[in-house]
């Protein structure tokens, strides 16, 4: 189990592979579910050049750990990974990586789904998008569709 915030570029597939190798659970898991959120170059505005992600460091660490603990209590997870970017990101960069390992697919899929939705609505991160006209704070997350 691991969760952290990164202020530099993250490589989602590498992080997932490393987390899987670190736990020594070969043969125990039958399902791995993952979610990777990446930056688009459009939202309500077009031509977004970059984005800056601010957070509340002490609360973020505590909140991500709490999410992991709750997911482990609700589903029989063998391993779990949550990594979130802060600082300056560009279109195509990964913003968040979540992965869940379990014996069966339903637990892995449901835990991964629950974790990203909880994170999006409660973890203290804020996005500011930059176009040629300047910076604009993103006002709220969409309903996921």
């Amino acid at each position, binding site marked *: 189990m691991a969760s952290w915030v990164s202020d530099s570029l993250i490589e989602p597939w590498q992080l997932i592979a490393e987390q899987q190798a670190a736990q020594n659970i070969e043969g125990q898991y039958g399902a791995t579910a993952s979610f990777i959120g990446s930056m688009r170059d459009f939202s309500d505005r077009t031509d977004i050049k970059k984005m800056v992600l601010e957070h509340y460091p002490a609360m973020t660490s505590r909140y991500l750990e709490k999410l992991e603990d709750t997911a482990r209590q609700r589903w029989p997870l063998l391993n779990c990974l949550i990594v979130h970017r802060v600082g300056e990101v560009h279109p195509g960069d990964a913003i968040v990586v979540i992965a869940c390992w379990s014996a069966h697919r339903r637990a892995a899929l449901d835990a991964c789904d629950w974790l990203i939705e909880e994170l*999006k*609505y409660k973890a203290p991160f*804020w*996005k500011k998008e930059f176009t040629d006209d300047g910076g604009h*704070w993103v*006002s*709220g*997350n969409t309903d996921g569709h």
Partner: protein
Amino acid sequence: MLSSNFKLAETINQMSIQVKFFASLREKLGQSDMELTAATTAQDAWNQATQNKPVPDNLLVAINLDYAKLDTPLQDGDEVAFFPPVTGG
């Protein structure tokens, strides 16, 4: 002697409340953090820290890193944070 005792009492009764603002709220208010020497609730801390600015719609409040409400009482040493809806992920 009497006045110095009063000063001592004031020092003992003084609280330390850390107030933090994030994201668009930090920019709008032009400050990221401040210290108050007394505050009864999160609302009271907001009023003092912003000189009674109206509370924005959808304001979120955290006390000691956990979500709280504006009427939650504060204690000496508490950290109260005010921020807009979160937009991570």
